[in-house]
């Protein structure tokens, strides 16, 4: 069957720079002297430590369990001793610290006994639990917990496996597909079993012929392997950034345009990265939790290439492995389009770190000076979402956040960077959008906090009012009781009391005139 392809709007064709790092096979990165494993490894929540300082852990042993249904577990990347649980700078543009478990490897790499789960003989719930317990999140960079996405009760027609890898410089998915195609297809089949899709489409950009060939061969093999199997198809797609964006890939392969505010599952499509499919296969068929990932190290280095890196390995040790050339002025995590400059090279590799680029002014020349926006509309033509980046720019610049969010839909922006790439005035548009987005989020948080404070203040005021009323009622009841008992003939009592006073102080009673 010839797959009909569609076009997404906008997009750009930047120089790919793939061959620098795609030639060499994946090499395992050596054990660093210290591993820093952050507790937040998914976009939906953090993990709770279940180890204490001094504990000996085995490779693949769970060291943090999910805090809630949205969280995912984290595991020891190697065997060793937990030396500290503290705050460490993260691979985040802020460079701020958050909680992490520090592990000192013992160098023995002793695995915990793996417990593979045969997908053919396991229930859906068991499989979902295993995916969560293996710490599997989207490996494309968004680190969305996979068990939530695949566990959605949606009628899924198409399962997409995203091997587009559209961003320049990055080749980790390319090498993964070339070398571990069978595992990826096996993972895709497990995912397929979970969502019951009719077909599996593997989309790969056509600038990766080796990966396409390897995946096609693996798909062929899997088809011949089981007769009643699903239709696994490898589809080469035109090279055009950002074809690897979820909504763009869905558009290209199925023709469906997922509208704003909806998710792909609403339209019978689910999309997973090849790395995620690979990790699912490792977790279920081999019982290995997610403790490592493939990272491309490229740019201004002597030996660019792809490495299988244990999570928690500091970026600096990875760079040392590749030999950073002189002239490097900053280090990017992620690609040149969507990545960010690392404030600190001590930051650890996490589940979403796909690429480290040593950047030099020769490779990434500093942008020419920013000029005034004349609303030429070039950015609007490049935007793959169909937004109007120049309007977003003006709104963000003037801090008119209501307009940015409400009228120009800033939260549909995927920060792909196409607009800034084509801008003839060299305006750092994405910087403005990121600023506006974080300001809007902070403002919404403030509003939520204010609403909560208002509700608590009002309920406290109501409670105080109620307590006051209750107290008044109690006093009134007591007074009424006393008055009633008086009226009921306790006058004798009063008379007796009066007599007593008179008997005690007869002089006073006679000499002091009654004040009434």
């Amino acid at each position, binding site marked *: 069957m010839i797959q009909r392809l569609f076009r997404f709007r906008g997009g750009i064709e930047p120089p790919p720079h793939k061959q620098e790092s795609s030639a060499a096979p994946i090499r395992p990165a050596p054990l660093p002297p210290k591993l820093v494993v952050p507790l937040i490894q998914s976009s939906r929540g953090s993990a709770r430590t279940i180890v204490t300082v001094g504990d000996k852990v085995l490779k693949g042993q769970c060291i943090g369990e999910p805090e809630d249904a949205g969280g995912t577990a984290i595991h020891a990347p190697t065997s060793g001793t937990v030396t500290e649980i503290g705050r460490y700078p993260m691979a985040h543009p802020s460079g701020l610290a958050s909680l992490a478990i520090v592990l000192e490897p013992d160098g023995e790499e002793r695995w915990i006994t793996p417990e593979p789960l045969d997908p053919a003989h396991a229930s859906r719930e068991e499989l979902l639990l295993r995916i969560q317990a293996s710490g599997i999140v989207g490996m494309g960079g968004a680190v969305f917990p996979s068990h939530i996405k695949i566990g959605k009760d949606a009628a899924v027609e198409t399962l997409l496996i995203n091997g587009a890898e559209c961003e320049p410089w990055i080749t980790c998915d390319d090498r993964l597909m070339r070398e571990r195609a069978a595992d990826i297809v096996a993972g895709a089949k497990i995912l397929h079993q979970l969502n019951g899709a009719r077909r599996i489409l593997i989309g790969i950009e056509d600038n990766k012929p080796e990966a396409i060939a390897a995946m096609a061969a693996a798909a062929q093999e899997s088809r011949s392997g089981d007769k009643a199997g699903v239709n696994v198809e490898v589809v080469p797609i035109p090279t055009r950034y950002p074809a690897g964006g979820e909504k763009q890939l869905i558009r290209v392969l199925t023709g469906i345009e997922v509208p704003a505010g909806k998710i792909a599952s609403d339209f019978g499509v689910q999309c997973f990265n090849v790395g995620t499919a690979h990790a699912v296969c490792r977790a279920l068929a081999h019982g290995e939790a997610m403790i490592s990932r493939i990272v491309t190290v490229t740019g201004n280095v002597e030996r660019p290439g792809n490495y299988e890196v244990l999570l928690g390995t500091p970026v600096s040790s990875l760079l040392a492995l590749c030999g950073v050339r002189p002239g490097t002025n900053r280090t990017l995590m992620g690609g040149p389009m969507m990545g960010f400059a690392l404030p600190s090279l001590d930051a650890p590799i996490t589940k979403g770190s796909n690429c480290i680029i040593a950047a030099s002014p020769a490779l990434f020349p500093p942008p020419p000076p920013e000029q*005034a926006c004349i609303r030429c509309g070039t950015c609007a033509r490049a935007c793959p979402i169909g937004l109007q980046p120049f309007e977003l720019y*003006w*709104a963000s*610049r*003037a801090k*008119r956040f209501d*307009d940015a969010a409400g009228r120009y839909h800033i939260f549909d922006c995927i920060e792909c960077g196409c607009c800034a790439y084509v801008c003839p005035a060299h305006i750092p548009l994405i910087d403005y959008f990121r600023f506006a987005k974080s300001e809007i989020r902070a403002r919404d948080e403030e509003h939520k906090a204010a609403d909560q404070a208002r509700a608590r203040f009002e309920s406290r005021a109501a409670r105080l009012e109620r307590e006051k009323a209750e107290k008044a009622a109690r006093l009134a009841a007591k007074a009424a009781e006393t008055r009633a008992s008086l009226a009921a003939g306790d006058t004798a009592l009063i008379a007796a009391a009066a007599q007593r006073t008179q008997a005690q102080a007869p002089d006073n009673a006679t000499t002091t005139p009654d004040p009434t």
Partner: protein
Amino acid sequence: MSYLFVVLSAVLVNNVVFVRILGLCPFMGVSKKLETALGMGMATTFVLTIASGTSYLIDHYLLAPFDLAYLRTLAFIVVIAAIVQITELVIHKTSPMLQQVLGIYLPLITTNCAVLGIPLLSAGLGYGLLESLLFGFGSAAGFTLALILFAGIRERLEGADVPLPFRGVPIAMMTAGFMSLAFMGFAGLDRFH
């Protein structure tokens, strides 16, 4: 056909703000945001249409028979103020939705000189009831158009690189002047008539 002329000339050629230079207070005051400009425009349209009709009735059946045309200004402003107040009370009670949209603008309209000026003009031009209504509606539509155009520009001005001394009201004034010049150009429509 002449009714259409009344409306079109009121909206474009003799735009109440840009050509007649009436109603500048709300024009400058309520044009900072598009939403509020739209609300103000709707409220003004509503009031001005009613005011034109009522003023015609007052003028034609009350003032004219007694030769009291010189009391127009006095009588109209009293009537308009009362109508605005009553409208606000009624809307407040009956339509919370409309109240949300027009709510805070209605009382401001009492002091909008366009609302007084348009009935006075139509009385001066000797319009009939339907013409008065159309003239009022057209003028208000022109007011709304001016307000919305101006608000759109002002929203953009907020983010623009305006030299410091011109920021805020000064640049808004200049913009209004340019828009007024542009609207004068509609006078050329007369050629095709």
